[in-house]
């Protein structure tokens, strides 16, 4: 079985020597971390991403991104100095009537339940834009593109950190993220989710750096993680799902260094205070406000009251045991544009799922092989940092999938709630594919993956997205 071919070790001896002297990759800075050798493919990938995103910004019908009406008018409200507002009491302007189908709780703005960091920052840009609603919408959409670009960059850095010598993983992961259709959709609309994706990717990358560094999680790194966590929580409360991932990385690093519970716990105490307590303390005023207004810190219970959405809440058992639920989530993950109004055809979904299933089987093969090798006492397939890194990345995917299911217990749920782990999805996918190819031939997987995803994007645009919005018979679904 080709899965028996080991993945490449993460660092060469020269790199290790540098790390040993206390110079981690971090010391060269995020931008400087890209090697000269990678710029020839990173540059066109980033250009391709930008070209695609500009087209998507223009093509996707106005206010048809998920919750885009609500987010836009939340920004408008803050720009006008009207305050945060209370769910159920803030009405959308009458001009939004044509987009009623794209609003969760029309005519009120349910998104004012969200922490205001993203909206507050965009409100500053909003104020300096010309007073034209559509013009402002498209301008704000453009601000999502750099956030998507940053995520693609972080995907590269993360993959490079874990598997610098595996080109299928190092190149394939950012390619996957840049060309994943629904991530592209997120990075072309007005929605705080794209900031959450970028920040979550940054936290996971920083956590992996702490794991890799010979000096472990230094105070400055822990504080950086904590501050990013605080910014993330003030962007969306669900960013709290990053905390267990960070906690796991801290635990793995501390246990690996000390191998004794007492010193491990002591180390975890100060590291946790910086990386985990700082964001929790920082978000406390928002939690207190929610508790006072809605009766719970996150405000989630208030969302249950939204008609049609809360009615679709289900139980964990019902969701986990339902093939239709998982089919829906797979479909959400890959292709539901225009707030689910523009899905792929079932055949397309099945082809994608089949191709993705191959990667999942590859991951399974790696796990089985790792278990067997450990049992037989043979040398491991992955080195310790790679194994721990993959555990952390897999944990980031797992907690966000849990988040998707958790939301399903409150209201109608969607796969996009797992998108903050998009880098993890991309990394695990390419590692899964790498498992099936002999080391010598793995690089051929890069152009294959690239062309497959490019073809998917072209077909998506021509068969589904553009025809939904444009053409003599189209457009009516947006502006009745």
């Amino acid at each position, binding site marked *: 079985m080709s899965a028996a071919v080991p993945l490449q070790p993460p660092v060469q001896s020269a790199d290790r020597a540098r790390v040993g002297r206390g110079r981690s990759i971090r010391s060269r800075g995020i931008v400087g971390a890209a090697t000269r050798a990678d710029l020839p493919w990173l540059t066109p990938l980033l250009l391709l991403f930008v070209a695609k995103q500009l087209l998507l910004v223009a093509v996707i019908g106005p206010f048809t991104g998920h919750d885009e009406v609500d987010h836009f008018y939340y920004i408008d409200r803050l720009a006008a100095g009207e305050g945060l507002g209370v769910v159920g009491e803030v009405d959308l302007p009458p001009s939004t009537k044509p987009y009623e189908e794209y609003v969760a709780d029309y005519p009120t703005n349910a998104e004012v339940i969200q922490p205001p960091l993203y909206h507050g920052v965009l409100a500053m840009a909003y104020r300096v834009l010309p007073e034209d609603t559509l013009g402002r919408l498209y301008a704000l959409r453009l601000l999502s593109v750099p956030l998507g670009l940053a995520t693609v960059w972080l995907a590269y850095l993360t993959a490079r950190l874990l598997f610098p010598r595996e080109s299928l993983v190092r190149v394939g992961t950012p390619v996957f993220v840049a060309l994943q259709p629904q991530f592209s959709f997120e990075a072309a609309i007005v929605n705080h989710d794209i900031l959450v994706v970028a920040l979550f990717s940054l936290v996971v990358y920083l956590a992996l750096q702490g794991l890799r560094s010979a000096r472990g999680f230094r105070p400055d790194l822990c504080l950086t993680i904590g501050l990013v966590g605080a910014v993330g929580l003030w962007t969306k409360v669900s960013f709290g799902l990053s905390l267990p991932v960070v906690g796991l990385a801290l635990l793995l690093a501390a246990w690996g260094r000390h191998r004794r519970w007492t010193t491990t716990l002591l180390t975890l105490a100060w590291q946790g205070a910086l990386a985990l307590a700082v964001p929790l303390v920082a978000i406390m005023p928002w939690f207190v406000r929610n508790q006072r207004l809605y009766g719970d810190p996150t405000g989630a219970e208030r969302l249950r009251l939204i008609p049609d959405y809360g009615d679709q809440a289900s139980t964990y058992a019902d969701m986990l045991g339902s093939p239709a639920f998982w089919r829906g989530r797979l479909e959400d993950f890959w292709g539901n544009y225009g707030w689910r109004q523009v899905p792929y055809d079932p055949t397309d979904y099945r082809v994608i799922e089949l191709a993705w299933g191959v990667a999942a089987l590859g991951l399974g093969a790696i796990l089985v092989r790792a278990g067997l090798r450990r049992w037989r006492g043979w040398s491991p397939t992955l080195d310790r940092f790679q194994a721990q890194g993959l555990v952390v990345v897999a944990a980031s995917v797992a907690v966000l999938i849990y988040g998707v299911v958790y939301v399903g217990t409150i209201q109608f749920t969607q796969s996009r709630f797992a998108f903050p782990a998009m880098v993890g999805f991309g990394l695990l996918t390419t590692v899964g594919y790498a498992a099936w190819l002999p080391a010598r031939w793995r690089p051929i997987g890069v*152009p294959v993956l690239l*062309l497959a995803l490019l073809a998917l994007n072209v077909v998506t645009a021509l068969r589904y997205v553009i025809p939904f*919005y444009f053409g003599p018979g189209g457009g009516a679904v947006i502006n009745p």
Partner: protein
Amino acid sequence: MTRPWGQWVPAAVGAGAAVLLLVLALVVPLEVRHSAPFGFRLTLDTERSIAVPGTTVVANYPNFNRVDLDLRAFTEGDRYDLTVYVRPDDPGRPNAAPIRRIPLGVKGDDVDYRKPAFADPFTTVRFPPVADSAGRRYYVWVERGPATQDDIVTLWSIKSYSRVDGRTVLAALIDNPPGMLSRVGAWVLLGGALVGFAAATAWLVGVTTALTIAAARRVPARVGAAARAPRGPGGAKTAG
């Protein structure tokens, strides 16, 4: 031999991939789905609150050539003989004659009302393209054949498609530019995006092909040894 493999082949593969992708995107006809919320039109007659065996579809483009029918049988027949009709839905001509009549035989198992979660609920029906369909409305309905008259077969929803090339799709975007864009602006945006897309694709595919060739020709000895001896103690060594 190093130069051609090292430079010209990746460049040729990159340029070829970009050209091929553009040709496929712009010239080769695709079956493009017409605009409808969630992709389909329900057959529910909302005025009478009853399900009816047909509904109106609006063709986005010329060459309307396909409908996908979500058929559901509530009786246990082996096979159902149906006929699909397509007629113009013109308020001025309420009794317009069908322009397409397509006999359809479906297996009972394929249209059972209890469809598995991952099954495609739709039955595809293709017919000779309606050339001048762009922007027109059509009423599509299903009738049961003589042998199926007593069976309960319903139609839940319809998807419709046109067989057109990418240029037709993009032309529709330029004719009705998004947002505040003028037609010229749409041309510039679309042209720029296509040129950028093609150039970046050629560059990216070229570089990744070069990576592949380099890896295939010059694999570090230790990695090669690891690849050849993956099993057993002392086989595959990894750092760390």
